[in-house]
């Protein structure tokens, strides 16, 4: 709270300035606190200690409590601090910087005869004020708003609502795709039709540039649909991290839980405090670089932390089956109630759920409790640090943050008007310092626009091509930590592989899905997104626990004791966003062409009949099955006499 507003803060003020030796007076004797003269004096000195003022290391390089960033009323400022002082101390001393800026603005205002709160006063000193002049009409003051009660611009208020709808829409879309990730069949489909999913259910993963970059680093190619991620990159280059504030389904979950879940501790001042920029926010950058280096070393292990992968994995393999279990049992109990209408309702809801939300039978996933536990843990962190995941851990967020520096859209602020009310911080999503007196952190901002809506003093302005006087674009990283973590990421892969899980002592239960490429190539590609496990209609695919070592965590394995693989299915190949099923897909595209010419009669190859598929594929399937058997020691073919194929075996392409 501001010194001018509440008595305790004024006492604070007195306490801080009653002596030059602030440390001594910290404990504040009553006599000092009530010393009116001292308070007066301090007002003259414009020094106070703000309980919430925090060191911002990347601005000042200092640790510990910092002095006031700005306290004087704007009218006082110009006479006290010469505008010329501005350039030199700006970098080191935020207080001086703020004063200097205020001075410049105020003198300009005075020169132009403009009211302090007129709209275009926000145009910072140095830009040409004439352009803004025609818009200079006083804003209507909203008595319900705190402070000066200046409402945010209409456009921003609208945009905030657009953002909310966008978040709901994209979360809904994500859930829709997730629910459609599974085969439900249809009465409309022809019996001969190949069974495929009608929607691009893996779309969110395809648009994920972190996934794309990882796989580019590990395989040196952009796989098919992952080209979409360039679109998301373009969006970031224009608007900054709008993906985080407007689109990301996992982020929306955190936004929601940070909104409804704060503990008593996490409200008010503590919440404001938590929403200030903290040093721990760098962790996500270090993690991200470590993961990228790890993929360069040959493993797309970063998918463990990719938010979209987590959302698919945790909701698809944890939340939905758990709900199915609970609701299924509950409704079955209800259906036993000997009242007809109750039974009907229970049965109808079971039918509905079984055909839309989940499948007709319970799905089980190998050791999925761990996945669910981690989801709940990370959601629970929102009680203490809003959007903990996004601020501290998310590698996709930091990846976009790296590119946000080029964004054409951004924030300008007029520090002079800021009253330090901290209202902008209450609902800040990114913890990117929107308040006056410090620089805005473009790489951390989620572009949620809550701060501009909240500010009653007209300090914050979002606009295209903003000046960069009060913003920092680049993530502030410590070079040595960065190098160390990136090196650790690169080194982790050989370190993990000298453990006996890949080259030696291969785990007998590590049976990969059909069509999987060779194990090293598989680890290069698989991002542990769980799409394949979610889609498998027979519940055959499961997230590995530690069967494949740490590196193999949550990669798909086939557990035949739970479900079997229907070899004409290959849905897991269809949904995999990273092409670990590459070869199967290639063959399928050939098969699609063959299917067009329906005249081809069924052909018998080595005892099996293939119809509507080309022989090439049939042969390929055969040879594939043989290789798979050889690789995993699957049961040998029962047929002893192998007939000669009708056409000579075709050499494997590539």
């Amino acid at each position, binding site marked *: 709270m501001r010194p001018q507003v509440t008595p305790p803060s004024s006492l604070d003020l007195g306490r801080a300035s009653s002596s030059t030796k602030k440390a001594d007076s910290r404990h504040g004797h009553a006599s000092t606190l009530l010393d009116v003269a001292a308070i007066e004096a301090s007002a003259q000195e414009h020094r106070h200690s703000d309980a919430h003022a925090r060191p911002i290391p990347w601005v000042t390089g200092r640790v510990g409590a910092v002095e006031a960033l700005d306290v004087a009323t704007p009218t006082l400022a110009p006479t006290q601090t010469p505008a010329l002082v501005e350039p030199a101390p700006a970098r080191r001393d935020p207080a001086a910087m703020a004063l200097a800026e205020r001075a410049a603005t105020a003198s300009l205002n005075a020169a132009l005869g403009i009211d302090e709160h007129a709209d275009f006063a926000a145009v910072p000193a140095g830009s040409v004020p004439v352009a803004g002049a025609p818009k200079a009409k006083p804003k209507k003051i909203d008595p319900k708003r705190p402070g000066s009660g200046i409402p945010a611009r209409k456009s921003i208020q609208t945009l905030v609502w657009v953002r909310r709808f966008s978040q709901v829409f994209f979360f809904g879309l994500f859930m829709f795709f997730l629910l459609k990730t599974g*085969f*439900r*069949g*249809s*009465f*409309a*489909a*022809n*019996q*001969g039709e190949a*069974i495929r999913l009608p929607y691009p259910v893996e779309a969110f993963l395809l648009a994920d540039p972190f996934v794309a970059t990882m796989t580019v680093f590990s395989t040196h190619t952009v796989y098919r649909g992952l080209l979409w991620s360039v679109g998301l990159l373009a969006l970031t280059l224009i608007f900054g991290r709008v993906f985080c504030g407007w689109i990301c389904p996992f982020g929306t979950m955190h936004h929601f839980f940070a909104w409804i879940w704060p503990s008593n501790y996490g409200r008010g001042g503590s919440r404001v405090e938590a929403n200030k920029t903290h040093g721990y926010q760098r962790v996500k950058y270090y993690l991200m670089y470590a993961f990228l280096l790890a993929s360069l070393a040959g493993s797309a292990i970063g998918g463990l932390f990719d938010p979209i992968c987590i959302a698919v994995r945790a909701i698809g393999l944890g939340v939905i089956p758990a709900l199915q279990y609970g609701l*299924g049992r509950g*409704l*079955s109990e209800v*259906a036993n109630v000997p009242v007809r209408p109750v039974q009907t309702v229970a*049965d109808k809801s*079971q*039918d509905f759920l*079984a055909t839309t939300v989940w499948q*007709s*039978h*319970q799905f089980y996933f190998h050791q999925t409790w761990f996945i669910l536990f981690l989801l709940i843990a990370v959601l629970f962190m929102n009680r203490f640090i809003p959007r903990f995941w996004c601020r501290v851990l998310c590698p996709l967020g930091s990846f976009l943050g790296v590119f946000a520096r080029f964004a054409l859209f951004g924030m300008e602020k007029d520090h002079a008007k800021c009253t330090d009310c901290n209202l902008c911080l209450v609902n800040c999503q990114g913890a990117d310092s929107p308040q006056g007196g410090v620089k805005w952190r473009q790489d951390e901002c989620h572009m949620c626009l809550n701060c501009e809506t909240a500010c009653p003093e007209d300090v914050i302005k979002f606009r295209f091509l903003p000046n960069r006087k009060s913003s920092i674009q680049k993530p502030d990283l410590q070079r040595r930590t960065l190098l160390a973590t990136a090196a650790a990421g690169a080194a982790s892969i050989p370190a993990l592989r000298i453990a006996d899980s890949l080259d030696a002592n291969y785990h007998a239960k590590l049976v990969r899905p059909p069509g999987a490429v060779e194990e090293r190539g598989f680890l290069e590609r698989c991002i542990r997104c769980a799409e394949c496990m979610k889609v498998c*209609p*027979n519940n055959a695919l499961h997230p590995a626990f530690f069967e494949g070592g740490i590196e193999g965590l949550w990669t798909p394995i086939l557990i035949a004791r739970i479900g079997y693989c*229907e070899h*004409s*299915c290959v849905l897991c190949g269809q949904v995999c966003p990273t092409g670990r099923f590459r070869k199967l897909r290639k063959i399928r595209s050939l098969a699609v062409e063959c299917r067009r010419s329906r005249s081809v009669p*069924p052909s*018998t190859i080595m*005892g*099996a*009949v293939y*119809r509507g598929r080309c022989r090439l594929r049939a042969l390929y399937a055969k040879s594939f099955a043989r290789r798979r058997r050889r690789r995993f020691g699957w049961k040998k073919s029962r047929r002893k006499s192998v007939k000669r194929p009708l056409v000579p075996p075709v050499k494997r392409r590539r």
Partner: protein
Amino acid sequence: MEKAPETNPVSPYFSRPTRREALVRLAGAGGVLLGAGAVSRAVWDRGGIGAAVSQHSGTTRDFRLKEGPADFAELAIAKGKADEAGKFPVVEELVRRAVDAVGGMKHFISRGDIVVVKPNIGWDRTPLHAANTNPEVVAAVVKLAYDAGAKLVRVADGSCNEANRCFQKSGIWTAAYDVGAEVILPAEHRYRTTRMKQEVLDEWPIFTPLVDADKVINVPIAKHHNLAKYTAAMKNWYGVLGGRRNRLHQNIDTSIADLATFMRPTLTIVDAIRVLMRNGPQGGNYDDAREMHTIIASIDQVAADAYGCTLIGQHRDNLPYLAMAHKRGIGTMYWENLKVREV
């Protein structure tokens, strides 16, 4: 504090509770104990696991007509013969002929009945593989049932493979939907544990849509079976069961007989249009199936199987489940003794 006499407590902290308080506390402890005892007594399961599970007891689901068809055939065989152009009669025509011979659908179905048609939709196979009932046969039966005045015809089965795939690949989903039937896929919540009290089948989850009906028409496909040698009508009732029914294969003949004792359909219509001659029950090779253009309709499922097995070159004496069923009086394995008509 040493040797503190009770009459003179050293500290008020050592004072005794009042009589009233002591009584209240004793009553509290006693109440909890009594409550626990009462609850345990109320839900005490004396008989061990499962004794109190199901109240629905009943050993059969009998959908047969009470009075036998007076002068109709009891076993009708419709064989399609190729005409001069080499064309076989359409499936619907064959089904109609067979059903008419045993009395016509109107004889079996009353106006307003809810009719269940139970085909075999067990496998993720196309009709050409002949592992599932021919969709045209199913559609024909559904049509006949509607024509006879059924209020609702339901097509359902508990599949072995993934149900959605089976229903779609078998073509039955589309075919039945097109003629207006309600198609019900198996789902866990549609099973209810039922006491069957049979020889090997004691208590099993039963697929309720198949038994909640006025009339049940069994529409199996005749095919080879690796364990049971030949299966059609009686084995088709495996689709009624849920749970781990694969374990029944240890004792397959008895369980088939048990199921046939439990389920007594109104009518049995065996599809032998295309018959799987070997590698049953799942097949997978087109060459294993042969066109036979035959429909068998009967009110006696045992006789239908006893006759049907001759199609794949089997003999009734090789099928133990027929003898068991015959002994139990479910039907007769000597189909010649029935009124047989070939149409």
